């Protein structure tokens, strides 16, 4: 690795230096939603879901697309494009990407298919792009590769925040 690259990691403070030195190849999933890419550890159980019905729920946040029935488990579906405050597109052209299993399973709308990348090949960003406030809390690092920005996000915390519903106290 080039010494400058190492310095860049130090500057952003986003990567563990010891990992950087000792790890040779660390595969990682990359999923694209709108203009952004998100990194998902390959240690997580992931699958692409095709032709599966998403059932809408009334009175929930607009980034909750609904729930789907994944082999008898109820799985919430989140739309990160809405979180990114980008224009909503036709979901028929998108795919669903499920992370984890059982009670903790979550599905996300993705554009295209997931990619597998070597983490070491990603170039750390000196400065993160401007992100919506909700997302800012959970981003722990940013990288780029061939012009695509990849965000390293604390996914579990983000999903918890997306699923936490808050309502006005006004009663009907």
């Amino acid at each position: 690795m080039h010494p400058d690259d190492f310095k860049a990691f130090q500057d952003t403070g986003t990567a563990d230096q010891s990992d950087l030195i000792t790890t040779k190849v660390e595969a990682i999933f990359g999923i694209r939603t709108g203009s952004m890419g998100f990194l998902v550890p390959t240690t997580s159980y992931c699958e692409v879901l095709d032709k599966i019905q998403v059932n809408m729920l009334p009175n929930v946040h607009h980034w909750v697309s609904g729930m789907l029935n994944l082999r008898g488990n109820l799985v919430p579906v989140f739309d990160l494009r809405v979180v990114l405050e980008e224009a909503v597109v036709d979901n028929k052209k998108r795919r669903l990407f499920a992370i984890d299993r059982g009670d903790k399973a979550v599905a996300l709308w993705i554009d295209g298919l997931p990619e597998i990348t070597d983490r070491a090949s990603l170039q750390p960003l000196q400065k993160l792009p401007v992100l919506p406030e909700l997302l800012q809390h959970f981003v722990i690092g940013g990288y780029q590769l061939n012009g695509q920005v990849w965000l390293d996000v604390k996914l579990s915390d983000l999903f918890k925040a997306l699923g936490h519903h808050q309502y006005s106290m006004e009663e009907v």
Partner: protein
Amino acid sequence: MNTPQTVTETIIDCDPVIVIEQLADQSAHQGYYGLQDASLILAEAVRELQLSQEADLVPMVSDWSDLVARFQFDPRSTAKEILRYLRRPELKIPMEDDEFDMLEQQLISDANDACNAKNANDDPDRHLIGQHIVIIEQLADQAADENLYGLQDANLLLAEALRSAAESSTITDIDFPVIFAEWAEITASYRTTPSISAAAIINFLRYPGLKIPMDDEEFSMLQEQLTTELSADELISARDHSLDLEPLISQDSQTIGNDLPGPVSRVALELVDLLLLQTEQVRSHLQHIVIDDKESLLTGLQQASDALERFANAAKTAGFEGLGQIGVHINVNMQRFTEHLDSFTSAHLELLLEWLGQVQEYLPVFNESSAGQLIVAGLTDEQWALPLAFEELAAILLQIRSESSAISDHSEVVRVTFATDDDVSIALPEDVNQELLELLLQEMPVYTRQFSEAMQHLQSGGNAKDVEVAQRVAHTLKGSANTVGIKGIAVLTHHLEDILSACANEQKLPGRALANSLITAADCLENMSEALCASSPPPNDAKNVLQDILDWANRIDQEGLADSQDKEIPADIQSGVNNKVETDDKPETVQSSMVRVPTEQIESLFRLSGESIILNSQAQETVRLMKNQLRTMQLQFELLHQLGAELEQLIDLKDFSGRTLGAVGSGLDALEMDQYNELHTASRRMAEAAIDAREISLDLNKELEKMHEVLDAQQRSVIDAQEVVMQTRLVSIATIAPRLQRSFRQTCRMTGKHSELTLMGENIMIDGDTLNALIDPMMHLLRNAIDHGIESEEERLAQGKSNNGKVVFEFDREGNYILVRCRDDGRGLDYAAIRAAAEKKGMLQPGQDISEDELKRYILQPNFSSRSFSTHTSGRGVGMDVVRAQIVNMGGTLTLDSVQGGGMTIELRVPLPLSMTYALLTHVGAYQVAIANKSIHQIIHSGEGQVVVQDDKEVLLLEGNSYPAARLINLLHVDDHRSRYPGPYAAALLVKNDDQTTAVLIDAITDSQEVVIKSLGYYMGKIPGYIGATILGDGTVTPVLDISELLRAPIRAVAHVYAEPLAIVESVSLLPTILVVDDSLSQRRSLEQLLMDAGYRVLLARDGIEAAEILAHANPDIVLTDLEMPRMNGIELAAHIRTQQKYKRLPILMITSRTTQKHRQMAETAGVDLYFSKPVRDEELLMKMQDLLNLAVIKTCEVA
């Protein structure tokens, strides 16, 4: 080896590093290589410290030499102290946790080796072994007499094995005295705790050294026999006939490690050790004296005098009456010295130290005839302020001689005076037998509850039967705890049993003060039990409780029960607790065999059973569709059959008309002979095929009916299975009763009020999660009832009420709801005060006409308090609004009922989670939803009633009644409604909500069916009005709604298709927040529960670094920290906090075991507001903390 005394003197003159290295060499010489390593590590650290000149090394090294000296006598416990010492942050030893662990292992290994070497050197008396074997055979005979053949077999097996071992060369592999002592204990406890002891007996016999020739199956059979043959009825009688094995144990103990001239019991040796430890304390105070410094001299003499007084008392209690008398005499001299400090010289100090040296020489050889001379030599010296007269000296010497043999022969356990941390430790031994532990964990909660109940009966009167029950339970617990090796429980129950035995022997019931102490001990036992089951932290006041029990036990030993009863009635316990459980009439809980299963497994079972129900529903649906299709097919077959018949007729008619298709030129008329052609054949075949198809469809229909029946049966079976799984999630409300009682008593003590808590209906079983969520609101209600409701004793008497207030918690189940009623007979709501507070806050105009019902609602408003001052218990800005918010969050309701001067009743009504429900399916705009039928009173179809607008609000007029109406579409804020039903509504649901009935208007009911409710998953939070979701027969997911909750829960107000995230303040964040920083998990958990029960929100951090990270984004109201922690200690944390402007006034409270002035000063300098030395009483901590919080508020107001 150097004694600690000489080492300390050497340290002052010599290089500490050299001294420590010498200690290392000595350790290596003795074979303690772990200790050698530890010393060398310390020497290295001290060398570094010398260079930086950071610490005073003399006391540090002196402590180390003490530890090294003690390691030889008590290696196991000293090993832990050595590790604690090396982990001191000021030593800055650069070692990781695993390295420390390895060192500890080495130290323990040294200890084991030393023990083995000692055992190997012993030369067991074969004659004595023979006697033991004979006794074991007698035990076998006795067991046979009692029909305990399993026990007889076990004894005979052991006797045989020991005889073989004694005759063979393997004799040195077996530690006979230890084996006999253990066996005696186990078999004695078998009669009281058969299940635990049966396992212990088998475990004992399986010891490879015994070489008992039995396989696993045979051992299992023997264990089963042992477990089953002792029935409950036989338990009590068997106990009375158990053989007294105490002499055997004491005889054995004489052979263990005894190198004294005469026989000395193990107990006596322990006493000697204890007294030696105390002389060291006196010595330590004296050695810190600087003669020229008056202050140091005064402090040193006073501290030494106090320590000497304790020593003298302990000596007397232990039976060293003569030594005690001399101690008192020396103490009088010391007080004289204190009064005349100017004349105190180094010679006097030398005199005192010399006498201490004599005591230290005397104690190890106290049973020698001439030993007494050691401690009286020099007491007649004129240098003493009060020399001992010769006559007195002679009398004391005589007494010492007479008592020395009595002490050494002491076969009974002489009670200790002071409780130590080790005595209350509930840590499991390293080699704990998991099987025994599992059994104990099952039995303990039952026994501790029985003990508590007996104690509560005694406190409110009670009789001899309660004493007997409590004594039996204490005895059983002691036996079980000893078998498993949990010292804390064994020690406490041992002393409790003694006290209760004294009560039983003298046929007296404990007085009020003793009963209070006993009930506190019962609480402590329950706490220990809960801690072992990992459902709560270990009690942090256990040492105080044990000390109290020890004081009572010692007092009873010396003065008897009657005298002790009248003495010293503690004033701080005035509450009483009464569980209205008819325990007398209730048969004793029968212990069935149990299995501990992880919660996740139960959850998985529950999920799978739900899956089965859903799959069954899908199969049922498919069958239903198939039957419908079959019915249609049958109609088609009928039609086909009919058409076939018509075709046949047509063909026949054509034949008659003479236009035959075949048989041309046969010469016969059509009437003379039927003439058939292909058309006939084809039509007949078609008609027959139609009939066959109909027959087949009928058969198929029968098969489908059968399948339907099978699916019905399967559905019933899977529903039953799910209910059974549900049962495993249910817990009795009584499980939290002890926690409520403890909190209640604590609040009573803090407020100084006299009251009584009664629990009713606590045996109801409810879902564990719901119960956990109810604890917080219930604690709030309890504290409020005592603090705000119950009046002071004087006030109550003046109002003609009894001096004891009454608080009742009543639990009930109503349909799918759990009702919790908290009733008190206190002052009730003060409506005038509420009005005044509301007027002050501008919520009400002065003089405005308002009903009491409306006034009541004000106290449910956030931050509304009618009090102008705060108290230690409930005056924290937390009121009924928080309780209400918590209950509403659970989908429940809260109602108040108050009679001024007569008391208040608060009713909580909380829904229980459902697994299945009957639901109506409907559409709301583009969404399909299922509405649970709970709280739906009636379904009204369109046309049965009329919706009209009155006062701008819709109402449903039905049979002369009018009901307020709400549209589901509005309740769910769905505004892109494209109704397929143009009418005002297709159906209305009459829903009972609180006291009124509301008509909920819906589009249509598309279906109704039984649905399985599933959770929305880990990441989806609570959505108001949702119970969960269900998977329908066609696989679609539909939310299941609770209409009554939807009617009353706060919901989105923004007119948009989707919900906007609107920030609301979470109820819990209204509570004052405490940041607890401690590296000990148990301490963190203990403080967390205490503070949460007291109504605080708690954040936890493991060390200073983690606390600093939390402080970066959270704003606690107070920080409660430990001193010694890894990475960043408490003092560094306090200093770090004070560097930040926003935390300049943040109260910091430190709790530590460090008691020295030096630590205290360091903490104060760093910015700690309050410094507590352990142990700390819970009430004291809470009070001081609230004072600090109040002070912080006042300061903030002043600054503002």
